[in-house]
């Protein structure tokens, strides 16, 4: 990835002495476009407290690395339609549709079954002041990376949005060009907690920080290393990748970075992995 070097110099005039001190840092050329959507306020229906902060922490790493922020809507400004492919208001809505950015983190509620079964659905739940309904079933309503959408990575920090029992029934269709998605698998009694830092740490492992020799990791491994923070026993962190072929899907699951700049895959094949807190 090409990097551009920014040089900052200070000319210090002191007494009769002129000194020049310079430092430099680099940012990536062709930086990523990132969005987040976070909801704390569910109108008293199990409100959360840390979703907006954790989304801000996630964004910070991308911004430090030189990425561009597309949208960072919270609470009522985040709409259900932002996650749906169809409809007059949809995921290409110019002010915040999820398919506008290359990387999108959703932090909020999902829906949990007890237990999850194939066909029960994986969901994203918001509390929007527009773009109703608030509930989106991913498998039937969400398609990312299609029809001009540019989303490559969809990260769902919510409850049960990627149940293992439903990967094959819910998660082929949303990959319309999307590269990878991450989430949790759980049920009503084994759930993710409203974590202060889970997405923040995930962001730091996705991007890394080269000047301190903190390495970026492939998306799947970054989530495996952070997704089990602040979850209850029985919850699994799940990462899925689409591919043109079997080998392509596996390669993306194991080796694709958010900065890899690989072409969009088809959804012929899906390769996923998970790690559970026992």
């Amino acid at each position, binding site marked *: 990835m090409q990097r551009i070097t920014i040089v900052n110099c200070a000319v210090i005039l002191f007494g009769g002495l002129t000194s020049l001190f310079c430092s430099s840092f680099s940012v990536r050329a062709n930086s990523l476009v990132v969005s987040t959507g976070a909801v704390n306020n569910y109108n008293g*229906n*199990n409100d959360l407290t840390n979703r907006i902060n954790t989304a801000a922490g996630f964004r*910070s790493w991308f911004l430090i690395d030189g990425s561009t922020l597309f949208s960072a809507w919270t609470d009522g400004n985040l709409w259900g339609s932002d996650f749906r492919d169809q409809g007059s*208001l949809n995921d290409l809505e110019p002010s915040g549709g999820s398919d506008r950015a290359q990387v999108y983190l959703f932090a909020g509620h999902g829906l949990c079954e007890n237990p999850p079964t194939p066909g029960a659905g994986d969901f994203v739940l918001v509390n929007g002041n527009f773009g109703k309904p608030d509930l989106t079933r991913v498998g039937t309503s969400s398609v990312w990376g299609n029809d001009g959408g540019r989303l490559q990575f969809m990260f769902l920090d919510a409850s049960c949005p990627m149940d293992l029992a439903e990967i094959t029934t819910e998660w082929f269709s949303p990959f319309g060009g999307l590269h990878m998605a991450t989430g949790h698998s759980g049920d*009503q009694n084994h759930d993710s907690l409203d974590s*202060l830092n889970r997405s923040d740490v995930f962001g*730091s492992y996705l991007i890394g920080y080269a000047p301190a020799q903190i*390495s970026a990791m492939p998306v799947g491994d970054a989530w495996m290393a952070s997704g089990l*923070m602040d979850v209850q026993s029985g919850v699994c962190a799940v990462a899925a990748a689409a591919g043109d072929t079997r080998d392509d899907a596996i390669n993306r699951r194991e080796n694709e970075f958010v900065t890899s700049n690989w072409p969009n895959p088809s959804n012929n094949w899906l390769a996923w992995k998970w790690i559970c807190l026992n």
Partner: protein
Amino acid sequence: MKPYGKFTGCWLGLVLLSLGGTFDRSTPARSAALEPSEGNQEKTEAQEATMRMARETLHLKFEGEVKPAQAANFSGIGSENLKFTRRLDSRTFISYNRRFSGADKSNLYRGENEDLLEKTRGVLSALGIPVAEVASEKVLLESTQVGHRDMNSGRVISEEAEKGKRYALVTRQINGLPVFSSRALIGLTGEGEIGFLEVHWPLVPAKVIEDARQFERIVREGWHPPERPGADVESITVGIIHSPAVGTAMDVYPTIRVIYAPKDKRIGMKAVLDLNPEGNPVPVPRTFLEPPREDLKLQRATPQP
């Protein structure tokens, strides 16, 4: 003209010039907290200590060109495929070997779970992590699977799940007080070398522990958490929270952690409140001393019909 070194007379101030380089016009201001620091004797000593820790304590094997780096509160060392960094303000160590990732199953750790735990104990001991503070140890197993859609029938055909990487996860307590934000997570390569390491085990000030003990007494005496609409109290636990591993701030606070279960069981994610005995939120441990500047919009315009 006053002599050089005296702050009088001919001090003309500081002029900042930006020379060269272009970047995307929408790139936001860079966080001042993560700027590379200037060279000095302390920096050299810190880098030498980092090098010794990487090579002699953790036995990391760097190949090719090895570069030290120091930025803000981090001191690191790395080659193309292997990086190690430690915080200078916290007992925090992070390492990642690119060979730990990948689809090659022959690179998976081959030892028994107990061997992985034994090696993990050795690493923690070498890094100065007190055994007495270990709360739990467990091995986490990654699983992998592949499926495809049959183009004719539309049916999804899945292969059998396979075993993937293993990680040792160690959690922390201090005399029975859980330290919620600390952990050690270690994965080894097929050769038994460190593939991934995050040990985040900052020192906890005595005052924080003392306050947490006070919180415990108050909870035992019948403290009640605030009610929360749409949710019931599931658990109340006194412990300690602190800033995350990668960042420039290290805040540490005692807390009464209350987990709420939703009354509507379908609505997932359990609310977590970290409170003081007055029922007010404890400060949120920061990640950055100076977060990146953002120019966020507060209100989203609804589309015109």
